[in-house]
């Protein structure tokens, strides 16, 4: 009997190992196809697939290895033969072979093209001069980084997604950066004019120069041939030493074209709904493919879906790719930008619901059909709602559209939670994962492993977190397994005053004996400072070991500014100040050349002090009776007031006196976050007390107390806690409120978010601090009494001790030598930071 001829293992050759190529390999492995096929990968780049979506994170510390998309051992485990740095050069479809650059010949039964795209560089004169780059690969970034070391300015041609990423990278490299966009607005594909306007304002405020509506006509070069500037289509020229082209991408379809496969008129390898090219043995997936709907998709999510489709088709499974959701959410230059669905409102009869706040750079537009169905939207400056809005697209949301775009406190109800989403809502559009699939998992690692949700662009991670059961580990950071509130209780009950002792006794196993981290050190420092009088510890935040725990501002008892100088804010309780004290502030500002500005908290900020000047400035201020205003600390800032009954015809109580009393009572109180307050003398509310952490409004018979208010990026009106209180009742309730907040809040959690998070909300808070339902009130009052009794002014303490003053030097080895990089230029009869010196001028000849 003759031996049976073994059936040869079919060969798959994958050309291209980017994100989509890797997804295809994973799809094969998940379906068992790597066991039945011999898989070979030809990769042009010198490293395996990496996360190109987060390429820019290289500049914020991610290494190329961090960006890798390939799990350790993946290739070996699945028997995949990966050839790095050896791209395919030629396809012979008749012979069914691929020839690589090294000359090796790879036979195939199935060929998959995942060749991606290449950056489009407009063919303007000088486009290939030294100093011109594209922004596509890690090698591109390395080259830009190297070239930028000896340059001071850069320009990005293209204001789309990648262009803004590139601009952020250039600015991060210290270059004075400009963006040139041919369209009349930034990100013209994704967002509308309103969103583009908001984005433009925010980006310009960051110090970038933006040119819209102009093209690049020529890259100008110097005698050595390298880039010196650009000529724009409006005839103007701009100086720049480095140019990054980010003017779109084009499908890499040359191999397919040369081998006779059908290619679209405007590029892209034509594929059907199963991702097969004109040759049924050849697939094309990702950015190189022209999908059956006639589009080339430049986003990773459609590429992933094509990879899944091609893998399914290989195994005879039914799956089609007929188009994709182009929703996008990114943080560009620190600005959240998102668009989803019919963002431009092209659906006939659709209507826009728009919220725009030019001051804060927030723009939100929802596009809805006449029957209320959400069609799409644009979010700029605040894209928190993206994770919920995108899955709601195509359905009638459970609340009105205006409630979905208005900020909290402006008439909107409590934010819509993920519970409002149907089970079938797609949460991760990169991997097409539904709410139900996520909710079936126990934790985030399981979600990522089983569904891959959250492993693409990452924009769904927040919603995923809300859908999962509460995490078992609520630890503050990698050093402590406890929350801030739990740490507070540990410190209080065990009377611990040493960070090292706390870390060594209560830190995680691997953190004990270590240095701690930038999360837990200031947190523990704040807890110890809050409890210091009760613990019998020094309340001075810079004593001994405490000094190492403080944030920079606390470390110098001043607020660090953009150019390395500091600002000084003396306390002006209640906003009341005598002419003599005003004169002292003026004289100090004049004598030290400081910029002065009235703050929103009714005091005066003095900017531009060097570290060395701080003690001398404060010596003058303390001598005149001023104290630290704690503008640098997570502590009570100000208690604003209107003039109240004393002067105002409408006032019904002495709001100034009450504000002064409250400010002096709570000054220096360290808290999880800053605390602001105000007292209004009547219901007209001139002091804006309802926007404060604790606000007081006078009534004919006493005071109303409001808590949990907030201005800033997420405004919230305060809630009325108690009415018609006497002076003593008011103070007692505020004592309890503040100490309960300090005891139970999370790190950096303002009272507004704490109150919204508090189980039972305002009713529970009222039960605890008004009705003493937990029996805590005596303890809370005692803690506050300790604070009040032991308060000392930090700057007066500092000035009394030469050793403490010794830290106020720019250079440890050259006391008295000012930092030469802290300079100023004149503006409106005062000074402003000279930021140009920080980016334009070499220092000490080290460039």
């Amino acid at each position: 009997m003759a031996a049976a001829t073994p059936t040869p293992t079919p060969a798959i050759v994958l050309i291209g190992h980017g994100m989509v190529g890797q997804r295809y390999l994973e799809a094969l492995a998940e379906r068992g196809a790597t066991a039945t096929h011999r898989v070979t990968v030809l990769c042009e780049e010198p490293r395996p697939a990496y996360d190109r979506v987060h390429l820019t994170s290289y500049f914020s510390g991610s290494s190329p290895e961090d960006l890798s998309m390939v799990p350790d051992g993946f290739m070996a485990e699945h028997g995949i033969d990966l050839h790095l740095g050896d791209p395919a050069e030629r396809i012979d479809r008749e012979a069914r072979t691929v020839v690589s650059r090294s000359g090796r010949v790879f036979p195939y039964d199935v060929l998959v093209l995942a060749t991606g795209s290449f950056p489009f560089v407009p063919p303007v004169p000088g486009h290939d001069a030294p100093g011109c780059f594209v922004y596509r690969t890690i090698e591109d970034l390395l080259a830009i980084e190297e070239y930028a070391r000896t340059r001071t300015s850069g320009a990005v041609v293209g204001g789309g997604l990648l262009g803004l990423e590139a601009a952020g990278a250039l600015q991060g490299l210290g270059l004075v950066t400009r963006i040139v966009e041919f369209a009349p607005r930034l990100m013209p594909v994704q967002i509308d004019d309103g969103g583009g306007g908001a984005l433009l304002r925010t980006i310009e405020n960051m110090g970038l120069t933006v040119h819209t509506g102009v093209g690049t006509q020529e890259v100008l070069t110097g005698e050595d041939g390298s880039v010196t500037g650009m000529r724009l289509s409006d005839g103007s020229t701009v100086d720049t030493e480095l140019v990054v082209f980010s003017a779109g991408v084009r499908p890499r379809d040359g191999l397919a074209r040369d081998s006779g496969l059908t290619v679209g008129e405007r590029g892209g390898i034509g594929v059907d709904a199963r991702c097969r090219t004109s040759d049924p043995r050849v697939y094309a997936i990702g950015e190189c493919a022209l999908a059956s709907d006639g589009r080339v998709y430049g986003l990773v999510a459609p590429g992933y879906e094509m990879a899944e489709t091609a893998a399914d088709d290989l195994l005879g499974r039914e799956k089609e790719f007929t188009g994709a959701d182009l929703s996008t959410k990114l943080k560009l230059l620190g600005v959240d930008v998102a668009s989803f669905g019919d963002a431009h409102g092209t659906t006939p009869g659709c209507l826009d619901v728009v919220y725009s706040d030019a001051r804060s750079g927030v723009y939100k537009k929802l596009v809805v059909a006449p029957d209320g169905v959400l069609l799409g939207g644009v979010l700029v400056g605040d894209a928190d709602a993206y994770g919920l809005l995108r899955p709601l697209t195509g359905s009638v949301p459970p609340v009105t559209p205006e409630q979905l775009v208005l900020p909290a406190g402006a008439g909107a109800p409590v934010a819509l939670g993920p519970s409002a989403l149907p089970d079938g809502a797609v949460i991760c559009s990169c991997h097409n994962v539904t709410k139900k699939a996520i909710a079936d998992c126990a934790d985030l690692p399981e979600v990522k492993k089983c569904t891959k949700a959250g492993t693409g662009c990452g924009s769904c991670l927040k919603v995923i977190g809300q859908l999962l059961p509460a995490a078992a580990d609520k630890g503050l950071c990698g050093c402590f397994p406890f929350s801030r509130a739990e740490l507070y209780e540990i410190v209080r009950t065990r009377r611990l005053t040493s960070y090292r002792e706390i870390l060594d006794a209560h830190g995680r196993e691997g953190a004990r004996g270590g240095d701690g981290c930038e999360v837990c050190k200031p947190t523990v420092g704040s807890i110890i400072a809050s409890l210091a009088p009760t613990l019998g510890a020094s309340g001075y935040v810079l004593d001994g070991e405490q000094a190492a725990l403080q944030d920079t501002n606390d470390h110098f008892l001043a607020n660090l500014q953009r150019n390395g100088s500091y600002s000084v804010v003396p306390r002006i309780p209640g906003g009341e100040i005598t002419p003599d004290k005003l004169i002292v502030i003026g004289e100090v500002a004049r004598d030290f050349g400081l910029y002065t500005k009235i703050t929103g908290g009714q005091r005066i900020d003095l900017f531009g002090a060097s570290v060395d000047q701080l003690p001398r400035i404060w010596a003058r201020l303390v001598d005149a009776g001023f104290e630290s205003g704690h503008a640098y600390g997570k502590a009570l800032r100000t208690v604003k007031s209107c003039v109240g009954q004393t002067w105002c015809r409408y006032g019904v109580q002495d709001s100034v006196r009450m504000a002064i009393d409250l400010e002096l009572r709570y000054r220096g109180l360290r808290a999880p976050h800053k605390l602001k307050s105000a007292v209004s003398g009547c219901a007209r509310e001139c002091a804006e007390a309802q926007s404060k952490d604790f606000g007081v409004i006078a009534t004919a018979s006493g005071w109303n107390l409001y808590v949990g208010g907030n201005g800033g990026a997420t405004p919230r009106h305060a809630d009325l806690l108690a009415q018609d209180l006497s002076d003593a009742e008011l103070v007692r309730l505020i004592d309890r409120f503040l100490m309960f907040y300090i005891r139970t809040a999370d790190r950096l959690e303002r009272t507004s978010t704490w109150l919204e998070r508090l189980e039972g909300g305002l009713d529970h808070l009222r039960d605890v601090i008004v009705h003493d339902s937990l029996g805590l009130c005596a303890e809370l009052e005692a803690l506050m009494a300790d604070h009040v009794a032991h308060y000392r002014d930090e700057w007066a303490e500092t000035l009394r001790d030469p050793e403490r003053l010794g830290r106020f030097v720019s250079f440890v080895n050259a006391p008295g030598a000012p930092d030469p990089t802290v300079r100023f230029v004149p503006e409106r009869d005062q000074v402003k930071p000279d930021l140009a010196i920080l980016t334009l001028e070499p220092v000490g000849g080290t460039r």
Partner: protein
Amino acid sequence: MTVELRLDDHWLAVCELSSLVPGRGVAALLPDGSQVAVFVDRAGAAPRPCRAGPGGSDIRGVTVAEWASCPLSTVPPARERVLP
């Protein structure tokens, strides 16, 4: 113990080791006008991993880093690019 920085041809005294606060950086001025950050860890002397010092500098007992390469909380982002 004095903390010293080795420059091209000599050692530069920076400060007494006891004047460094563990966990915090201090700035030191070099003769050419450039600046470096000097750290000491909890143990008081052992160097902490950080990128190499500028110009091949070496140091006894502490860690030195360029402003540009070290995540130093006392320096605003703009200043971290002063000395590449």
